[in-house]
């Protein structure tokens, strides 16, 4: 064990406060950072009465990777990329490897991760546990659709190799880490010719215009997302900027440029980190309204074939380390839901309510999902998904989001557990119809309830 490590490998430190990315509801847990599989086994065996949960880079917004009074296994110490099949396009790596690291390693070889969310700083284990999706869900599905097999450390300290298509795989995909600790995974990759994106940008003047544009032309793009101005009211309610594109082919790069000479270079930019202290209420209606106005106006009405870096297209916020601090000490909540196709009226009602309530949200995105994914607790289903973030100290926000939950549930939709920090437990079973199977499998696999988290306790998963 390296001496500079702040953790002891197995027994862990004294309890330290842990939160999700939204920085709400801190609880204390013993942090354990295994560096080998043997240390991970020992850590699981010595979890104690209040159990343990694996944690990656802490990008889940809510309490999914917290475990009050118990152990939290920081998996980022297991960070080896074992094998890359550069011909067949698969990678075998530890669960603690970040997608950022995979991009660094794979892009020069002409491969890209199959799915990336809005940040590269998630681990492979977290990507499977939350069954993350990206801008290509309508084409490629969620992350676990590209996972061929994984090694799972279970409650009794055994390591199982779990192949796709088995019940344990489907429970683990999107299972929020509650079936065990993922140690390694084999992931199928996406071939690319360059590390640049060819991006089409267009504006939509209101929500109906946006939905019409997405419905008509989404199938032409591998990646598609719309940034939506939820503070806009009246006729421009739901005005948006659509950015859609694909990996740029080699011949799209201009001759005799740096990009052409080194087409697979991965160069994410990085800005200074957000300061540790930011006053509350910096992101109010005025500032966010101003930002949204500028963001909408600066976007071109229609532009095609613009070349963008991967980091600019997929992960604009990763450029600012600790961007979650801009909400101040009160933190923020992310609200993401999906409602099926045919439930457009529910979507319109919800957007209307948010707009009328004047929620200061500058990171709101709307996207169309493709087919659902096999994970029992996987979030995506065919339909419209809207994600927004809101400062947690907004008065009466809890009650307002409860009302939105009712709308979502009535439209047979669901909210995303990896982002949740406040769902009413009673709504869970109707949103996730395979919840009973999940509970039954967990009861059989882990009768003592070794794997648990604040999310699991709060929602009774």
């Amino acid at each position, binding site marked *: 064990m390296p001496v500079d490590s702040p953790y002891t490998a197995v027994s862990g430190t004294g*309890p*330290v*406060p842990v939160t999700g990315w*939204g920085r*709400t*509801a*801190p*609880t*204390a*847990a013993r942090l354990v950072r295994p560096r080998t599989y043997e240390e991970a086994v020992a850590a699981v065996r010595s979890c104690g009465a*209040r159990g343990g949960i694996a944690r990656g880079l802490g990008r889940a917004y*809510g*309490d999914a990777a917290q*475990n*009050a*009074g*118990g152990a939290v296994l920081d998996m980022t110490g297991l960070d080896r990329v074992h094998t890359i099949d550069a011909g067949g396009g698969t990678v075998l790596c530890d669960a603690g490897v970040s997608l950022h690291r995979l991009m660094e390693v794979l892009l020069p070889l002409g491969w890209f991760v199959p799915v990336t969310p809005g940040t590269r700083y998630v681990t492979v284990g977290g990507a499977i546990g939350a069954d993350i999706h990206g801008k290509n869900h309508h084409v490629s599905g969620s992350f676990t659709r590209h996972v061929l097999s994984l090694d799972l450390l279970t409650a009794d300290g055994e390591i199982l190799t779990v192949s796709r298509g088995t019940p344990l795989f489907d429970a683990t995909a999107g299972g929020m880490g509650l079936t065990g600790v993922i140690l390694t995974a084999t992931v199928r990759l996406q071939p690319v010719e360059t590390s640049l994106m060819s991006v089409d940008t267009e504006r939509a003047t209101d929500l109906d215009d946006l939905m019409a544009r997405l419905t008509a032309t989404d199938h032409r793009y591998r990646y598609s997302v719309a940034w939506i101005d939820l503070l806009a009211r009246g006729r421009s309610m739901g005005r948006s900027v659509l950015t859609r594109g694909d990996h740029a082919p080699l011949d799209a790069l201009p001759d005799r440029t740096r990009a052409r000479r080194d087409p697979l270079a991965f160069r994410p930019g990085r800005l200074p980190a957000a300061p540790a202290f930011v006053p509350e209420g910096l992101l109010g209606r005025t500032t966010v309204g101003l930002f949204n106005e500028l963001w909408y106006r600066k976007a071109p009405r229609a532009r095609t074939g613009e070349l963008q870096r991967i980091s600019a297209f997929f992960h604009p916020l990763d450029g600012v380390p600790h961007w979650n601090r801009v909400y101040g000490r*009160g*933190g923020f*909540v992310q609200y993401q839901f999906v409602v099926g196709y045919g439930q457009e009226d529910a979507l319109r009602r919800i957007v209307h309510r948010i707009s009328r309530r004047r929620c200061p949200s500058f990171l709101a995105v709307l996207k169309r999902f493709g087919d659902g994914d096999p994970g029992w607790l996987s979030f995506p289903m065919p339909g419209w998904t809207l994600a927004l973030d809101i400062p*947690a*100290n907004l*008065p009466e*926000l*809890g*009650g307002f989001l409860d009302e939105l939950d009712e709308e979502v549930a009535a439209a047979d939709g669901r909210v995303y557990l990896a982002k949740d*920090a*406040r769902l*009413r*437990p009673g709504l869970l079973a109707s949103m996730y119809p395979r919840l009973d199977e999940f509970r039954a499998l967990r009861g059989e696999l882990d009768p003592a309830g070794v794997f648990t988290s*604040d999310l699991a*306790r*709060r929602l009774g998963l």
Partner: protein
Amino acid sequence: MKDAFGTPQSLLVLGGTSEIALATARRLIARRTRTVWLAGRPSPALETAASGLRDLGADVRTVAFDALDSDAHEAALGKVFAEGDIDMVLLAFGVLGDQARDENEPGAAVRVAQTNYTGAVSAGLICAKSLQTQGHGSLVVLSSVAGERARRANFIYGSSKAGLDAFAQGLGDALYGTGVHVMVVRPGFVHSKMTAGLPAAPLATTPEIVATAIETGLRRRSETVWVPGTLRVVMSALRHVPRAVFRRLPV
């Protein structure tokens, strides 16, 4: 578990017939609270309070608890924590006493002090330990502006609340970083059965307003809550008034 807005799912009230506590419980039940424990001396009033909360849809249980019997605290409260996590403990018991009588009956004055202070020290430490073991939870302590500066008119009650307030602040600092949050609530004059018949002081408030302030304090993870908020400024000024002037003030 508490949600992102600090709303608890389970609540333990020490002093189960306190009007402020019951108003708080009603508010929290309307949000997320499903399990409520009402700890207090067994009485019809305690059962009435429990059934009132049950009507709102909560799972309410009562547990025998006497602030003066600190030897029995560990057993009574241990039973509650053994049944599952408690997201919030509301330490709400306390007696006002009768200043004029208590000055002449030291025994009665000691009972006020033992209820409000030593009883709270015992129960507060026991709850704090259990909360620390579970790694999360809020301990909300009902103090009073009367503890901020002792007044001629109620210094026995005031001194007991001053002790409680100082204890709770220190406990909050001791538990900082353990996942447990201690919040000291300092209401001014509250219209309730405890103060019935007394002349209302300026900036008087109600149990419902105190309950709202507690809910907001939980959301903000506040360490001190004044009800109403203007009392913070008023008491800050009063603290610095010279003794010779203060004792002549009509407060």
